[in-house]
């Protein structure tokens, strides 16, 4: 089989339907559109300048904060979870891993919808809180930034646990034993041996959680009730409703830029803290 026959079709397809669309976004970001959404074919930085408007910057800041809190919670919850899975007997390990990943493969909209039910004023969480007397009147949990974070965490937590599990599973237990034998405390073993060696895995997980959280427009809409506007909502509205393609392109590029910076950071870190190879 020739090289061309094997590589040709796939690379051609991805060039036309992956590379070209992204190139189109980059190209259009240097254009400007009029009130009716028509493009003016003249290179300009006007759309980049418009994106720096405090209104849009605030949306970007809100998105980064919300996606950041989600990612932080995912690390704090995901790390001990991955640790616990790695400590399970091998037979159970696979079962629990499948259990953790399974919700990720179920319909994203149905999962988000379940949270509308759970967080509703008449929902079970509010009901239980009233039952134990913690709150007096029904609690409005839905349509708050907290609800958006809960939804995002729910959607992407498995993507944090998986790479963390792989990183922890790969750790050589003898390294930690050696550190212990040489007199290091447990906290010190964790901070100087375990943490640095699992950091690349944590960063992969952080990228998997942070980037899709940033660009999500469904969860802010359904669980935030339109009160929490994130950059995904802005892109969707500018692109499909206002039809300001250049501005939407600049906003999309900001997400892509953040992704690229994080990927570079991750590859640098994993080279620096490359785990000892067993092969």
């Amino acid at each position, binding site marked *: 089989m020739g090289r061309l026959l094997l590589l040709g079709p*796939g690379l051609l397809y991805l060039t036309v*339907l992956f590379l070209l669309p992204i190139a189109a976004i980059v190209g259009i970001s240097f254009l400007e559109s009029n009130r009716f959404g028509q493009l003016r074919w003249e290179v300009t930085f006007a759309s980049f300048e418009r994106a720096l408007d405090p209104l849009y910057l605030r949306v970007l800041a809100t998105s980064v904060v919300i996606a950041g809190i989600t990612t932080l919670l995912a690390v704090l919850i995901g790390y001990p979870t991955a640790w616990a899975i790695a400590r399970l007997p091998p037979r159970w390990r*696979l079962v629990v891993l499948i259990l953790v990943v399974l919700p990720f493969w179920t319909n994203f*909209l149905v999962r988000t*919808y379940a949270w509308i039910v759970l967080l509703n004023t008449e929902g079970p969480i509010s009901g*239980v809180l009233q039952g134990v007397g913690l709150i007096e009147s029904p609690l409005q949990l839905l349509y708050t930034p907290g609800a958006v974070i809960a939804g995002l965490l729910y959607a992407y*937590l498995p993507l944090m646990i998986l790479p963390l599990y792989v990183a922890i599973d790969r750790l050589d237990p003898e390294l930690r034993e050696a550190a212990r034998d040489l007199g290091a405390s447990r906290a010190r073993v964790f901070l100087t041996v375990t943490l640095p060696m699992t950091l690349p895995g944590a960063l992969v997980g952080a990228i998997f959680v942070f980037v899709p959280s940033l660009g999500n427009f469904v969860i802010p809409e359904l669980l935030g009730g339109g009160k929490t506007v994130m950059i995904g909502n802005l892109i969707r509205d500018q692109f499909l409703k206002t039809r300001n393609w250049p501005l939407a392109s600049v906003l999309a590029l900001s997400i*892509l830029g953040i992704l690229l910076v994080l990927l570079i950071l991750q590859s640098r870190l994993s080279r620096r803290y490359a785990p000892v190879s067993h092969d």
Partner: protein
Amino acid sequence: MTESLSVAAERTGGGAGDEGTGAAMMPAGRRRWARPARWPMLVLAGVLVFLYTPIAVVVVMAFNETGSAYRWSGFSTRWFGELAADQVILGALGNTLVVAAGATALSIVLGTLLAIGLARYVRSGLLDAFALGPAVAPDIVMAMGLLTLYVTLGFSLGLHSVLLAHVVFGTALVTATVRARLGHLDPALEEASRDLGASALQTFWRITIPGVMPAIIAGGLLTFTLSLDEFVIAFFTDGPATPTLPIVIYSLVRFGITPEVNALGAILLLVSIVTVLVAQRLTGLGGRDADT
């Protein structure tokens, strides 16, 4: 902002603890050194409760007579009946199946060839990264870029445009699974086949393809499941006359709680579980289980 979340996690943890207690009772890992810390097991149990409470809520509501999440009024399959009679949902299901099946078939061909080509001829990691890129690219960026391309080229929008868009991430997924499998295959098998007089094409069909078949099926199943559930790209690149199932679910969910969505969710859940379990069996994970 974070308070309400931790409260939510705590409360769901206190409420329905069925799944959680099961996990907590598993023997904590036997470690050779120091005392095993117990609290990560509790976090794991909490995570399982967090992950499965919403799913349990959907399934319970699907079988509840009134469709309410708050009061059980008796077992009923009524909502499944109404679902089966809903022409809009059935039509959308048909559309989604067409897209998922077509995208999977095309992705399998493109992804398998690409993975074999990359493994045989390409040494640099750059093309690898390019082939796997669509799996990492944010869906909203892909959706926007694809619609921009379609509109610029004057391409009509409909199921075909969604299908072609889904092939982009499908190809990346199949390439990734097949590429991983090729790493475990013995290249001497292909050499032996050629030495014994088989042509390059015979070797490809009789040795290479059977060798990577489990990965092809696994990658195909994952593509199928993802395409079935994919919303953002479909929302951007679909035409108004042929909505896919996630687009219809989105329009239903936007207007509050709809009992039919519960029944639909329960069915989709079952489909996903079966698919993931089959894919799991076929990929290396099952084999690694036997090794350890």
